[in-house]
């Protein structure tokens, strides 16, 4: 309420001053009311406010604009919200009459204001609403050092014959930076009558003047400017300089072509290609090639084929990229022909281009290249064959795999992983038994990533492969393929196995199998398996027990940690940290408190924090548990993690708790952010303590976001109720 009264008082003061100065007789209370409610908080309020401004009429709007001249009031934001809001409002479809009235008011107001920054604001509003009706009131600013640039911008937006004529008229008298602004504006609008005026300025010693003149001439693209722009590019050495002579010569040629002067543009492209044929000019030469390709399209094939054997790799690469834009069956055949004469690197590049563009014409030729003796060519052909042929390429790719090396097999695997088609995995599964070990490993990966459970029938025999890498891949694939139906088979495998890695993989596969049927309780079955397992195999059940998550599994794993050897301890602790629910929290906390082992402590306390995080405890309970963790935490890393979790509780005590760490250099940023995020998320947190905490936080926060964060805290503080809340 206090703030509202202050705002109204402010509005009244402004209004009184305005009335005194201008003799405006608008309804003071209506304007005061509008200003006091700005900015609008939503669309409904905005509509209401704008309707109220409409109700004031043009005179009322002018009165508001006149308030900008009140030099005693520095903060003009209420006025700005009102005028800018209305400027946007009247540009809505159907508001043309209001727009015209607004332009009238802005123009009248503009001439009446003295302060240049206020005038600047009004001109920027004309940039939103102005049409030809705004030109006359802007003309007088086109030779004003401060305002010529914004006024010219408005005329660029209007971009009519009248606005361009106004810019040209002002240009005749303009000097210095104003002249530069006007020339750029006429370049933006592509106003042809300025060409004769600009052509001599291209050779000016003033680089900025030369630059904007070249820019404008390139945009306008009058055929008569060719020699002047060519000379400027020559002077710049056909590469970048601050006048942009070279790049704008290319822009000029592009615009010539767009305007129907293709022959002249081609001539320029060829000139640039010739004159930029030196190492540092390659990017310019590429630009000329692109220009040529864009003009001649499919007909540019000869130039592109020629460019593909250029000495410069960047130029060759560009030629193929441009070729892709205009690829047809006819010119695909020319590229295929080119493969025969190109060096292997270029062959591979052409193949890649044809593959990326899925050139069906090239498919047969690319299949032949699968037999290439050159590795670069062969790998490119594998990739391209898969992309073009999809499932059609499976048979030839399998042949490659059967006789190829690891690189070939890897390339085929990658092609298969992205290959579309319903039969891909079936065909892969059928072929796997005939493949060499290198290929089998890759195909197992394909089946495990893409395969359905029925593919297990081809995986199981490979679990006993004599090739260790095949066996390893096969075991690794189980967790992706098994369902609940394989559980017994997995236990059998588990009981038969003695290999550490196999057992680790089987552990994950058993969990996958159980996850497949969440309606069944597996506790009894697993506990029985644990009971009967050899002592050296029990540790491979801990992760499975963690998945079950019950009291008995917890007891087994806890006991293993308490009385096991180092291997068992490590496995048990890892399982506790992976516990599927929060049941392991107490045990993890107990380990944290009791252990002298630094690594165990770190793992246990972090596991405890995670258990708290995933638990269903109330936020208050979580806060207490995290406070307990903080009491024993040792490193800043651990404490930081606790503060992060504290923040998630969003409760008052957590905010107060974080305040204890505002003076700790290593934790003060995290503490500050915790306090800020909790405080700003709940406006019922206020009072002296909250204010003090937030003010201390402002002193602490730094870094890229620091200033913004401080600003948002200050804003929040300014909006908090005074006094103390009841009941916190």
């Amino acid at each position, binding site marked *: 309420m206090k703030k509202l009264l202050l705002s109204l008082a402010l509005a009244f003061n402004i209004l009184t001053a305005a009335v005194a100065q201008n003799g405006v007789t608008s309804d003071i209370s209506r304007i005061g009311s509008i200003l006091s409610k700005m*900015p609008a908080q939503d669309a409904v309020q905005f509509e209401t406010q704008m309707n109220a401004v409409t109700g004031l009429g043009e005179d009322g709007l002018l009165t508001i604009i006149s308030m900008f001249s009140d030099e005693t009031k520095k903060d003009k934001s209420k006025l700005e919200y009102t005028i800018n809001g209305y400027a*946007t409002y009247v540009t809505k479809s159907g508001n043309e009459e209001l727009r015209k009235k607004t332009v009238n008011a802005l123009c009248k107001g503009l001439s009446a204001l003295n302060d240049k920054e206020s005038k600047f604001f009004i001109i920027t509003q004309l940039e939103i609403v102005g049409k030809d009706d705004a030109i006359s009131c802007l003309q007088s600013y086109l030779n004003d050092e401060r305002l010529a640039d914004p006024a010219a911008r408005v005329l660029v*937006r209007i971009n009519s014959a009248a606005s361009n004529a106004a810019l040209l008229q002002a240009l005749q008298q303009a000097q210095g930076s104003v002249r530069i602004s006007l020339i750029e504006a006429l370049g933006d609008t592509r106003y042809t009558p300025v060409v004769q005026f600009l052509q001599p300025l291209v050779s000016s010693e003033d680089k*900025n003047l030369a630059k904007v003149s070249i820019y404008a001439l390139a945009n306008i693209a009058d055929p008569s400017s060719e020699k002047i722009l060519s000379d400027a590019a020559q002077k710049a050495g056909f*590469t*970048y300089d601050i006048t942009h002579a070279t790049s704008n010569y290319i822009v000029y040629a592009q615009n010539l072509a767009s305007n129907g002067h293709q022959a002249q543009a081609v001539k320029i492209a060829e000139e640039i290609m010739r004159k930029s044929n030196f190492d540092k000019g390659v990017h310019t030469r590429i630009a000329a090639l692109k220009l040529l390709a864009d003009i001649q399209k499919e007909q540019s094939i000869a130039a592109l084929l020629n460019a593909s054997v250029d000495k410069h790799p960047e130029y*060759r690469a560009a030629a193929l990229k441009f070729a892709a834009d205009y690829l047809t069956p006819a010119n695909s055949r020319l590229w295929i022909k080119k493969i025969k004469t*190109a060096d292997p690197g270029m062959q591979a590049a052409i193949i890649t281009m044809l593959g990326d563009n899925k050139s069906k014409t090239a498919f047969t030729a690319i299949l032949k290249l699968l037999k290439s003796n050159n590795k670069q060519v062969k790998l490119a052909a594998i990739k391209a064959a898969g992309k073009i042929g999809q499932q059609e390429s499976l048979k030839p790719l399998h042949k490659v795999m059967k006789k190829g090396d690891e690189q070939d097999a890897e390339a085929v695997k990658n092609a298969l992983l992205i290959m579309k088609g319903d039969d891909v995995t079936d065909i892969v599964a059928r072929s796997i038994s005939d493949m060499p070990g290198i290929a089998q490993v890759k195909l197992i990966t394909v089946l495990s990533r893409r395969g359905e459970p029925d593919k297990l029938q081809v995986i199981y025999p490979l679990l006993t492969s004599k090739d260790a890498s095949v066996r390893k891949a096969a075991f690794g694939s189980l967790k992706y393929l098994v369902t609940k139906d394989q559980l017994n088979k997995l236990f059998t495998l588990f009981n038969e196995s003695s290999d550490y890695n196999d057992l680790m993989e089987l552990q994950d596969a058993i969990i996958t199998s159980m996850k497949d049927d969440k309606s069944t309780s597996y506790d009894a079955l697993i506990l029985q398996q644990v009971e009967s397992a050899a002592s050296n195999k029990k540790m491979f059940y801990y992760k499975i027990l963690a998945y079950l998550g019950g009291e008995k599994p917890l007891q087994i794993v806890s006991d293993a940690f308490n009385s096991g050897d180092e291997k068992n301890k490590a496995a048990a602790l890892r399982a506790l940290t992976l516990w599927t629910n929060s049941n392991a929290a107490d045990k993890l906390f107990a380990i944290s408190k009791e252990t002298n082992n630094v690594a165990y402590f770190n793992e246990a306390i972090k596991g405890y924090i995670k258990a708290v995080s995933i638990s269903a405890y109330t936020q208050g309970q979580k806060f207490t548990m995290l406070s307990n963790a903080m009491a024993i935490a040792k490193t800043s890393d651990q404490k930081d993690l606790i503060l992060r979790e504290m923040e998630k509780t969003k409760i008052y005590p957590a905010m107060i708790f974080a305040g204890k760490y505002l003076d700790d250099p290593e934790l003060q940023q995290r503490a500050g952010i915790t306090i800020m995020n909790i405080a700003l998320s709940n406006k019922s947190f206020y009072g002296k303590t909250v204010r003090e905490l937030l003010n201390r936080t402002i002193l602490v926060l730094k870094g890229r976001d620091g200033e913004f964060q401080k*600003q948002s805290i200050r804003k929040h503080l300014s909006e908090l109720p005074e006094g103390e809340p009841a009941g916190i």
Partner: protein
Amino acid sequence: MSDHIPDTFKNTMNPKENNSRREFIKKAAIAATAFTIVPRFVLGGKGYIAPSDRLTKAVIGVGNMGRAHFPYDGTKVVAICDVDRKHLQQAAAMLDKGVKTFSDYRELIQLPEVDIVHIATPPHWHGIMAIDAARAGKDIWCEKPMTLTIGEGKRVIEAVQQHGRIFRVNTWFRFKDDFYGMGTTVKPIKKLVDSGLLGWPLTVNVGRHTGFNWKFFWVGKDHLDPMPVPPELDYESWLGPAPYRPYNPHRVHQTFRGYWDYSGGGLSDMGQHYLDPIQYFLGKDDTNPVSIEIDAPQQHTDAVGTWRRVVYTYADGCKIVLDGEGKDVDVPYIEGPKGKLYPGFRSDIPDLERKLAAFPDPEPQMTDFTEAVKTRQKFALNEENAHRSCNISTIGLIALRLNRSLQFDPVKQEFINDEAANRYINPAMRAPYTI
């Protein structure tokens, strides 16, 4: 809140990604390309630093962000530029003595020894600098958002492609790292969307509940008193193409994001991080939404404000909902007619992961920028798709500035029947700056 700065560095510049000379030569020998270029250091020549296998890099804008990008693997910083002398001095102190320092980027990009220009300035400079760097024959690494306006983005595409350059924007979630609150990379999300298991069209919710923070503290002040420009800052050059406004420290450096002339708050700055992966997995890399609906307080003409909700709709009915207030509780991240996906890849589709496995993976992407530069291959997040993802933020911001919902033509990249909105597409620049 600022956690993503070091992550940016870590995630994109993994020191383990070995780009040693030996590795480079080995890769070059079998790479499926004919275009392996030689880093400019290797070319040697008078005044050049001793031959090296690393690409050379120049960084423009060496405040916090720019400095965080000095040490990424496979490159060496040979030149830096800033319009703030203090920044330049602090940055130079972190680098080899031979590093060249500039206050005018136009001089820096003419250095023949530079391969890559890294643009880490405020966004109102991104477009001009990227275009000029392309015209100077440099490859470009640009901070997000790619550009401030739609018009600049279109010109960046033209300049980069015209001059055969390699370009990337510095966001990476479409190909790397867990994607904010999703608890997964984008790849399986893309695979899921492509599979059709969720049905079509899809609605994607980007808000606090789904793990995204819109950083509303990045707002401006609606009243700034003019203040003297500090002697170390060339304020005219800092403003560059933006309209002249009297100096106040809140306009520059860390707080520039709060002003329309230079940025657009959290939606501009975080928008491309959050929205680019969505464009990617929806398969919309070459298009944009057709309508933008907003719910927001009225915006100030200079200072960026907050918003409550922005809803984008594509021509096929797909939607992106930006939930600014975090009010959408228990909403899925993606919802389709056949199923929903929640953070952590949870879904109401039974046995989702197994069903999904049968589908092909998304096509692999080129995710190593130095490799892309050396072999002249298009980077995963390049000038074209980055422009489109930048557009999403930009069209939302224009709707906010006009206090109304808008219709957009993604082919022409213009608003439909709204001249005022179209005036924001390619606003004139302050002379003598041009693109």
